C-alpha cells in the first residue's frame, strides 16, 4: 500500500505543503490547521517536515483510550471518529514522528488523511521532492 515518505534533507522549508493542506481541507490558509507541519531551523538551513507516514505500528491507534482512531482500509490513513474523541492528546504523545498535533481549543487531533489517496501537499513538492507518496522502495 502507498504511504507518505519524507526526505528531510530535501525540504526547503517553503511551506507550500502546509498552506496547500490547510486549503485543501478547510478552504483557508491557516498554518495550524494543516496536517503537515515543518520544524524550522533557518539559521542552519534545516527544515523537518512532520506528517503521518502510516507507520506499521500505529501507536496512535493503540494508545487511544476510546478507540476513536482507526485505519482506513482503502488508503491506510488514520481515520478519526470525532464524536468519540475526548481530546486527551494521548495520540499526540504516542506518535514517535511528531506527526499529530492539536490546535488550541480544539478537542480532536489534526492527522493526515492522505486526501483520499491524492495528497495535496505532495503535488506542491514536485521539485524538492521532500515529501512523496508511493510504495516503499519505489524509484522516482
Amino acid at each position, binding site marked *: 500500500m502507498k504511504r507518505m515518505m519524507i526526505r528531510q534533507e530535501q525540504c*526547503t522549508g517553503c511551506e507550500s505543503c502546509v*498552506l496547500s493542506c490547510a486549503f485543501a481541507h478547510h478552504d483557508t*490558509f491557516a498554518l495550524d490547521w494543516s496536517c503537515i507541519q515543518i520544524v524550522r531551523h533557518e539559521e542552519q538551513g534545516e527544515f523537518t517536515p512532520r506528517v503521518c507516514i502510516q507507520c506499521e505500528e500505529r501507536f496512535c491507534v493503540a494508545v487511544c483510550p476510546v478507540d476513536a482512531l482507526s485505519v482506513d482500509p482503502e488508503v491506510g490513513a488514520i481515520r478519526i471518529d470525532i464524536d468519540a474523541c475526548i481530546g486527551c492528546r494521548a495520540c499526540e504523545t504516542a506518535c514517535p514522528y511528531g506527526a499529530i498535533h492539536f490546535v488550541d481549543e480544539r478537542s480532536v487531533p489534526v492527522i493526515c488523511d492522505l486526501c483520499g489517496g491524492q495528497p495535496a501537499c505532495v503535488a506542491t513538492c514536485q*521539485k*524538492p521532492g521532500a515529501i512523496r507518496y508511493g510504495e516503499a522502495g519505489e524509484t522516482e
Partner: protein
Amino acid sequence: MIENRSLEQRVLNIDLSRKSIEWQAISRDDERNYLGGRGIAAALLARSLSGPIDPLSPDAPLIFSMGTMTGTNTPMSGRSNVTFVSPATRLYCKANVGGHFGLYCKLHGADYIRITGRAEEPTYVWIGDDGIELRSAGEFWGKGVRGATAALEAIHGQDINVACIGPAGKNLVRIAAVMSSVYNAAARGGGGAVMGSKNLKAIALSRPKRGLTPHDVSLFRDVQAEMRAALYQDTMSDSYYTYGTAASVDLMNETDTLPSYNFQRGSIETIEELTSQYWNEKKLLKGRIGCASCIYSCHRFIRIEEGPYRGAYSAGPEYETVSALGSGPAVDSIGAVQRSNELCNDLGLDTISAGGVIQWAMECAERGVLPPEMYEGLDLSFGSAEAITVLPGMIARREGLGDVLADGVAEAARRIGGESWKWAVHTRGLEQSRVETRGTMGYALAFAVNPRGPDHLHTECIAEFGMTPEMKDLIEKITGSAELARPDTTEKRAEIVRWHEDIYAVSDALGLCAFISTAAYGASPERCARLFQAMTGIETTEETVMRAGRRIVTLERLINLVLGWKEDPSQYAPWRLMNETIDMSGNENLILDETTMKGMVQAYYDLHGWDRETGIPGSTVLEDLELGEFSSKESPC
C-alpha cells in the same frame, strides 16, 4: 473554529516617537488602482511627501508591504517589499525580499507596516497573538542578524519570524540592508540605515494562528494549479533548482560578460570555484532554502569544509554576490566569497554595494589614489581574499577605511578625490548591480530609467537574450519579431523594457517572485489578473492589471520628481560604462555612448507619453492613468 483574517487590506501605522500603534484600512479604489504590495506602498509614500526629505529623519517613512497573494500557496508568492527614500540616492527606493516574513505579516492581518518617528531607545516591534507591543531591544541592539534572531527566539520561541538590521543599520551605513528570515535581504538603497535611524532593531512575529480565504476559492484553485503546472514545465525550472541563480557564471566568464575587476574586464583568470556546478560536485551544497510557497528553491545553503575559511556557512551566495564579492574584486576562492557573504548577511550589508565599494577601493589602491596609511596592513590588491573578508566588518562598524566606504562609492569618491569618481561604478549614488550593460541594450535602458538606480530588479528583461523558447516567444509577442531576441540592438528596447516594467510592478504588487514573471513566464498578465480577481473579488483583466503596473511605474517617477530628480544624460549609466570600452568574445570596443542611450530613453519616454526632454509625465498621462490625485506633484520642487 478557524478564525480568518479579513480580506480588507490594512496598514499597521507605528509612530515610534509617539509610541502609537494604529490600524488604517486601505480603500477599495487603492486596491483596484495599485493592486497591493509595492504599488500601494508607493501610494502611501507619495501621499506623505511634499518635497525632498532627509531619508534618515524621523519623518521619513519606512514601509513594509506584503503582496496581495502572499500568505497563500500561490507558487512563489512569498515576496514582500521595503519602501523608503534612499539614504544612498535620496530618491525613491523599494527593496524586494523573500523568506517567510511576508507570510507571517499577511496572516497576522498586517498587509503593510508603516514606521515613522524615532524611538528614544533601541526598540523592536512584537506582533503576537495577543496584540502588538513596542519592546526594548537594548540587549541585542548591536548584535548581528543571527544573534538578534536567536535573542528574539529565546524570548518568544523558536517558531517566530524576524526582520531586523545588523550593526551596519545601527551605524547608519548607507549600504545597509533590512534582513528577514536570517538570510533574505531587502538589500538595495540603504533601508537598513533608515531602520537604524529610527532606533528600530527588529519586527518579530509569532507564528500566526489566523487563516486567509480568497474571495473566490474555486477560481483561485484553478489559476494557481494552472500556474503551478506551467512553472514546472518551464525550461528554466530545472536550472533554478539544480544550480540556483549562479547557474551561468562559467559561461559568462567564458564570454567575457561577467563584471570583473570593478567593471574593467569581463572575466577573471580562474572561475571554477565560483560556479554552482562546482558547489554541487564538491558537495558544498548542503541544502536549498525556499521562500514561502516557492517551488523552484533557487536559494542555496553552502558550507565550507576545508581551507582557511572552513566553517563559513550561509544561504547563498547568489549570482549577484558571486560577482560583487568574487569576480568584481577578482577573488576566485569560494571559501573567501562565502565568508564575505556570511559576514555581509550577518552584519546586514547589501552584498552588491559592499562588493562595489571594496573593488573600487582596490582600484584606488592600485592607481595610487588611496593614501596607504588608510589601509595599512591590509592587502588591498585585486584578488585579495583578506580584503573581502575584513572590510565588511570595518564598513559595518565604520572603522578606518570602512568609514569612508560606508556611505557608498559615490560619497567615498568625493572624500578620496582625484579621478577616483571615474571608477566609482554607480549612478545617482547606487552601485550598479552585476550586469555588464555595455552590449546588452535592453538592460542598459532598464538601468537608465530604473527609479532606484542602475539595477536589475525593477525590470529584468533577460528575455532579450532569447536563451529559451519561452524568451523568444515573449519577445515576439512584445515586438512582433522573435528575431529581436538579441541584446545587441537598440530596436524595440523601449517596448521590451516597458512591458517588463509593467509586469514587474504587477508581480511586486502581488508578492510574486521575479523569476516567474520574467525568466519563466508562469505568471502571465492574464494569470495575474485572474489571481488578483480570485483573491479580492475585484473584476480584473489582462489589460487592467498591466495598466495598474504602468500606473505604479508612473507614480514612482512622480515620487522621484518630488524628491528632486532631474533628467541628466550623464546619469544614464555609470561614467566608466559610458566612457571606457570593453571587449567581449565576438564583440569588441563595446560602450554605452550618450547619443545611443538618449535615443533609447527618448523612445521610452515617447512610449509612456512623458516629456521626451525632461522625463516628466504630463497631465494627459496622469488623467489617463487616473493619477490626478498626484498631479500637483508632477513638477520638480
